[in-house]
Every structure is written in structure tokens, then in C-alpha cells.
């Protein structure tokens, strides 16, 4: 043996405490029984499906929402109507805004 090996050999690890084995056994018994534990692969599969479902929900969600007018948009519309009446284009404005009837066509 070389000097280095002799020195390494002197550095022996202490033995584990006698209670270590018992504490590992009791921890094992409180864990999910080994034969019932879901495999890591199946957990990944479930996780992947859940992630895809959440992503799909988030992508589709904006298309389902009806457009909501904000307060600023409502104020702007009211101002535009006032301006149209003041300028005298209220009839034209009403004509543009109203839906076409059978008489029009």
C-alpha cells in the first residue's frame, strides 16, 4: 500500500446508529405501500394531460368572451353623438347606424 492508501485506510467511517434501520422501516410503513405507489411514468402522463387541458382552456377562453365596452368607449360614443347633433349630421349618423329594412332594399 502507498502512503496515501495507508492514510485513507485510517479514515474509517463510523457505523450507523442501531436505531437507523428501525427508523427507516417505520418511515417506509407510513409511506404509500410500495405495491400501491403510482409509478413516476403514470404521474407524468396525468400531469401532461392536465397541463394540455389547462393550456387549451386558456387559448380558447378569449374567443368565448362577448366584447365588453369599457367606460372610455361609452364616453367616446356619447361625445361623438353630441358632436354629430351639433354639426347637423344627426340624420346621417342615424342612417348609418340603423340596420337596413326591407323598404331600403
Amino acid at each position, binding site marked *: 500500500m502507498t*502512503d*496515501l*492508501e495507508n*492514510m*485513507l485506510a*485510517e*479514515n*474509517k*467511517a*463510523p*457505523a*450507523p*446508529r442501531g436505531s*437507523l*434501520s428501525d*427508523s*427507516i*422501516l417505520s*418511515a*417506509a*410503513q407510513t*409511506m*404509500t*405501500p*410500495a*405495491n*400501491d*405507489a403510482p*409509478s*413516476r*411514468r403514470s404521474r407524468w402522463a396525468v400531469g401532461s394531460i392536465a397541463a394540455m387541458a389547462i393550456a387549451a382552456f386558456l387559448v380558447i377562453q378569449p374567443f368565448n368572451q362577448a366584447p365588453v365596452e369599457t367606460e372610455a368607449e361609452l364616453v367616446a360614443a356619447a361625445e361623438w353623438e353630441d358632436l354629430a347633433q351639433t354639426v347637423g349630421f344627426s340624420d346621417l349618423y342615424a342612417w348609418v347606424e340603423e340596420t337596413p329594412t326591407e323598404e331600403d332594399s
Partner: protein
Amino acid sequence: MKGANAKAVRANVEDNRLSSDPDIDLLPGLRAGEPAALKTLMNRHLDRIHGLAWHMSGDRALAEDVSQETFLRFWQTAPSWDASGNATILTWLRRVATRICIDEKRRKRPIYTDEVPEQIDLTPRPDLELVRSDTANAVQSAMMRLPERQRAALVLSFYQQVSQAEGSAAMGVSEKAYESLLSRAKVKLKSELMTGKESLAL
């Protein structure tokens, strides 16, 4: 004909590998969740895994935590354990214990802040050791100054007495990389020990 021969050779290699794993007899019990099988596995290997963790960490409490986590991980892995895979159960235990020790060390690595970090004494705690010589303490302190992977290669090779093939499998590196780590570990350890040679009379 060639295909049949190759199949026979593969089957033979697999049979040899299975028969070379002395713990394969415990697998049915571990898969069934029998504590007696886990106890037998610990009777066979707890000292080795604890020793590996102790040489990696120099800390008895941490070595016990690592041992516990390693065996509990195997307890949960046993149902899906691939007996035809490349690793024996002991190699797997060594690999997991080594990995946990390295990860534990990285978790404790200091983050640079204005605060003064707590000083960690790497020498083994005397209250937990029986009688350890100055040489033994100096060697363990020098080992703690090695980079983790070099220390792991040294511990596996010298204290666990594993072959180069098994050591590289336990560390998840090529045999060439393992050999290189081991060689650098020896050089650095010698150098570390030489710095304290006055007290050790090398």
C-alpha cells in the same frame, strides 16, 4: 441462424447479469411491500451506503439522512424496478446516495450577499466519533476540500472497493471520465495532505 445465435448470446448475458445481482432474491418481497425484505436489504447494505454518505459528507447526521432517503427511494421504486436493466440494486443504491450527497452540498453552497455567512467546520465532530486519529481527521478534512465528483470517485474506488465499470455506472459517467476523476482526486488529495505535512509527519 446468426439472429438466433445473437439472441442466445443476449439471453446468456442477461442471465449472467441477473445471477450476478445477489439482491434479486429480495425483489418479489420488496415489490409486495414486505418490510422484512427491506430489513434484509438494509442488513446487507446499510453499512456500505452509510459509509459512502459519511465519507462524502463527513457528517454523521447527514449520512443517516442520506441513507434513509436512499433506502426509502428504493422502497418506492421497487414495483417498477427493471430487473433486466443494466444496474444491480447495490449499484443503484450507491448511485442515488452519491447523487443526494452532491445535491445536498450544492443546496448548501453560499449565495453571495452582504451578510456574513455562517462558518462551517468541515472536521468531523469529536462528540460523535469514538477515537479518531489526527491522521484520520486530516484525511477527511482534505477529502471535503476536493470537488464533489472527484471525492465521489475516490470514495467509490477506495472505500466502496468497486470496479471501474461499477464506479462509472454509480456516477453515471463513462469509464474514461471516472478514471480521470479518480486520478485528479488522488493528485489533489496528496497535495492537500502535503500542506499539512508538518503536523502529520508525512
